[in-house]
């Protein structure tokens, strides 16, 4: 007669097994557990799920759950608010399954500006919905900057058709070729907003360690009409600094 512990270990092993073989009744629990993980993480990472597509996102969740087994109920029900999910998604795991993009595990690496990033298109899957000219890069510990410079969206509903839109907000149409999406995440969830090329260059340069003057030059190079004032205003979601009056004068002179 096996012990209670042995019986439970045997049942747990059957649940986490990848193969679909075995008792069909156990498969009910296996599917339910996987669905719970996907729903829990998808509830917080809504934008990521919309951008990458459900097949990729589900595969990433499965890989994450295999590599980092949940140890407490709060880690699944609150969907890992401490960002361990996005932090632990490995580039290799994503590139294997994601038809959309690659992600840099930027815990200690500094991102490069999109202008200098190597353009790499991924067309690994016939079900590919989009491709990016630059890899998805997490530019700060609390933000994710996605530059869909060459985002091809054959099915606009893929991004904009979700009920309620991205993150509960009205979905923004992402045009091909010129726009950038700033994806941020805080304690309340994930949000996405479209930013102009100049602003993206400004943020990317600052996050890469450039000083204000160099960041301003990068922004103006990307967008000649770039205006520094709104970016430094209090309450701006992309506010990163308080620029000096001289910098504003320089910005004004360059724009004029």
């Amino acid at each position, binding site marked *: *007669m*096996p*012990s*209670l*512990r042995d*019986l*439970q*270990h045997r*049942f*747990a092993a059957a*649940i*986490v097994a990848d193969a679909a073989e075995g*008792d069909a*009744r*156990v498969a*009910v*629990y296996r599917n*339910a*557990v996987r669905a*719970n*993980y996907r729903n*829990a993480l998808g509830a917080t990472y809504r934008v990521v799920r919309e951008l990458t597509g459900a097949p990729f996102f589900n595969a990433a969740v499965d890989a994450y759950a295999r590599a980092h*087994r*949940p*140890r*407490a*109920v*709060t*880690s*699944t*029900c*609150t969907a890992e*608010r401490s960002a361990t999910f996005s932090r632990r998604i490995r580039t290799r795991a994503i590139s294997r399954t994601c038809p959309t993009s690659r992600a840099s595990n930027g815990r200690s690496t500094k991102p490069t500006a999109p202008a200098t990033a190597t353009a790499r298109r991924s067309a690994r899957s016939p079900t590919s919905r989009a491709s990016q000219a630059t890899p998805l890069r997490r530019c700060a510990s609390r933000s994710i900057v996605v530059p869909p410079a060459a985002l091809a969206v054959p099915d606009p509903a893929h991004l904009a058709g979700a009920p309620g839109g991205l993150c509960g907000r009205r979905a923004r149409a992402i045009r091909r070729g010129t726009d950038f999406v700033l994806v941020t995440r805080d304690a309340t969830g994930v949000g996405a907003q479209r930013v102009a090329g100049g602003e993206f260059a400004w943020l990317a340069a600052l996050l890469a360690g450039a000083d204000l003057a160099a960041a301003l030059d990068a922004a103006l190079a990307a967008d000649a009409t770039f205006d520094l004032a709104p970016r430094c205003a209090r309450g701006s979601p992309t506010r990163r600094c308080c620029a000096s009056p001289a910098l504003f004068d320089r910005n004004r002179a360059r724009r004029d």
Partner: protein
Amino acid sequence: MTSLSSLPLPPASACGRSTYGTCSRTPAVAWFEVHSENYFADAGRTSRRSTASAPITRWRCTASACRSAPRSARPRASREAEASRRARRARDRLEHLCWSGIGGRHFNDLLPLPYTDEALARVCARIDEVQAYLGRALVVENVSSYYAFPEATIPEHEFVAAIALRTGCRLLVDVNNIHVNARNHGIDPMAFLDAMPRAAVARSTSRATTTAARSSSTRTARRSRPRCGRSTAPRWPGSAACPR
């Protein structure tokens, strides 16, 4: 959106937190039922709001009453400790008769128990431990299962009844779960209901998710009322009566 307060709710009905969140004013219900794990991260912020207007029932799914590993004396996370303190003030504290994790791995699901003497002793010990911590009787709910361990030596209804008799805990008899188990494992639902110690039954309920299950489960529920004493109105997830 339909106002919940305008619905003809029976006085013994409960209300799920998701519905309460959409109400402009407090509906006239006997108590609120919250899924505890959903509020651990916020340390019961929502619970404070609803406790002021109606009693609250903590309905937890994954405390793993039959976990093999010994449980630490105090919750590790401060937020969970805060939630536990609030749970002690709750009207009822519900737990499912199941397990959810082993070997450091947590499954967010209600996993079936092997109904053996060792499992019975383990569950009773855990319930005693929780009741001592809470300072009140725990309410234990029978679960639906899709897998029966061939090593089981005790029928489910005897297992549930023995737990109530040994620990003094109370029972939430979910008639729909009995119905599901009867279909899955071929047990007699009426024999299950007859085996429940009536004095230990806190209440009975029925939560069905499909129309077919509702109709058949309702028949079982109606027949169960003389056996199980107090019974709430059948509550269906997603319906107007008590969505959850």
